[in-house]
């Protein structure tokens, strides 16, 4: 598992201005490195997990103050990119191209006035200089890769014409079509049914292990952007999986960061989750109702002031 770091985050802080002129820190010194692995970030709403993901993508809301000792993206091509100081243009080129983010709810994050196929092709148009026929072929391939049986039909549909599960797959296809090295998935399955949830996770799992580059026709791309494409076959990507569902994350990821009040309170191998030591992690695990282990009333999380210090 320990591959060369793809992403290095050291002492990341995100703060928003308050009405009284002060700053409120919502992410307070988060550090981790990510290789080509699945990293889970778990926490309740307001714990700063989504803000962490957004800060890495450069998608924090206007007005936010993002700072870090290190925020470096080391992808293919040797040179690491300092995400904090690189010019916005380079950041834009990365976003959607080499790093991508899947958002929670396909109902709100797909454009309602564009056909699904066109939305996916737009990603390619922005990031890869390929011809329109290649674009279209890739788009259909990307839809097929996420388990859509009739890509040509789905590509013609508008987001409101497909189910939540289908919409979420379309969004994943859109994020993966350019072959990113880093994928941040912010609650990618929370809006979905349990059965569909598993399908979507299965797709992500396959892609992380196999590498999203595998689907591409290398001959078409090599001439345009050899560094960007084609080399990643079999390498897999790095995935940051943000969720509030501790059990789901532990069954899917390799490693889990547990966040509370803007800090990482515990880092643990997913398989070791039931040995978690931090009282917050334990509390979160215990307050879930469990099939076959009834507890009435359910244990409630007792918060401790010291956790947020």
């Amino acid at each position, binding site marked *: 598992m320990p591959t060369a770091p793809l992403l290095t985050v050291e002492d990341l802080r995100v703060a928003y201005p308050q009405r009284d002129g002060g700053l409120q820190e919502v992410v307070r010194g988060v550090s981790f490195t990510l290789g080509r692995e699945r990293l889970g970030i778990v926490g*309740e709403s307001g714990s700063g997990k989504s803000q962490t993901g957004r800060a890495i993508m450069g998608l924090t809301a206007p007005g936010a103050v993002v700072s870090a000792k290190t925020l470096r993206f080391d992808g293919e091509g040797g040179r690491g990119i300092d995400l904090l100081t690189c010019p916005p243009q380079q950041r834009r080129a990365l976003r959607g191209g080499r790093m991508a983010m899947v958002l929670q709810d396909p109902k709100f994050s797909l454009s309602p006035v564009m056909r699904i196929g066109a939305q996916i092709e737009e990603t390619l148009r922005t990031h890869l200089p390929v011809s329109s026929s290649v674009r279209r072929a890739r788009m259909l391939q990307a839809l097929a890769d996420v388990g859509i049986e009739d890509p040509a039909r789905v590509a013609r549909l508008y987001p409101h014409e497909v189910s939540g599960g289908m919409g979420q797959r379309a969004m994943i296809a859109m994020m993966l079509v350019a072959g990113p090295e880093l994928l941040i998935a912010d609650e990618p399955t929370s809006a979905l*049914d*349990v059965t569909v949830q598993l399908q979507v996770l299965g797709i992500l799992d396959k892609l992380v292990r196999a590498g999203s580059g595998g689907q591409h026709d290398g001959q078409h791309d090599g001439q345009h952007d050899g560094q960007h494409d084609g080399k990643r076959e079999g390498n897999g990507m790095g995935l940051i999986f943000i969720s509030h569902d501790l059990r789901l994350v532990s*069954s899917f990821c390799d490693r889990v960061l547990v966040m509370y009040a803007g800090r990482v309170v515990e880092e643990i191998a997913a398989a070791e989750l039931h040995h978690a030591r931090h009282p917050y992690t334990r509390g979160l695990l215990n307050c879930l109702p469990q099939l076959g282990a009834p507890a009435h*009333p359910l244990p*409630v*999380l007792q918060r401790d002031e010291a956790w947020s210090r």
Partner: protein
Amino acid sequence: MIGLRVDGLRVVYDGFAAVDGLSFEVAPGESFGIVGESGSGKSTVLRALCGLAPLAGGSIAFTGSGSGSGSGSGMPAEAGSKAWRRQMQMVFQDPYGSLHPRHTVDRLLAEPLAIHSMGDAEARIERALDEVGLGRGFRFRYPHQLSGGQRQRVAIARALILEPPVLLLDEPTSALDASVQAEVLNLLEALRAQRGLSFVMVSHDLAVVTHLCQRLMVMRRGRAVEMLAAEDLAAQRVQTDYTQQLMQAAAGFVRVGV
């Protein structure tokens, strides 16, 4: 205590039968769960019960004490009428969407009282807030000043302020964090014990349903696939493949051949 008997319920939207000939019974004071994936018609059942969805066929009747063994004497006969709705209130899934953003908690709670001409609003509102563990301090706040769990408590208070014997719960905790979910589930359980309420609860989370309900029905494509007791589900004694599938899905992701 009041129960429900549903017979051959049908709800049709534009020729599509969302609920197709569904029959079940909820004993007085029982907590009954409905599970299924999206589109199975489980929420539509609840909407039909409280008169929000048009009935295309079948009947719904109250049963139990005061209803004269199901014939409906002393009970409102017409589903969806005002007197009917007073017996049956609903808590919706999304506390961010179900509370009017420009009404204070006070106004949210006063409205059902006004609609059903119940007097003594002042005392009832304060009591309702105390009962759901919010306290009177929350009375003049707006929904945006409350957390998700607090909002859902307001929604529960709004449903219970009419003192209905039957409470319909449409995924009451799926928009909430795990820790808050535990608090809301405990609250619902305590209120049911205290007041002898009957619950009909819809959820896609099998663990939540088995926690709160004694019996449950698995739905698929508008029909009942299986009826089973919560203990049977907990012990994995299920009859149909579909329920089996749901159970496996609920157990979490399993990596295939790494």
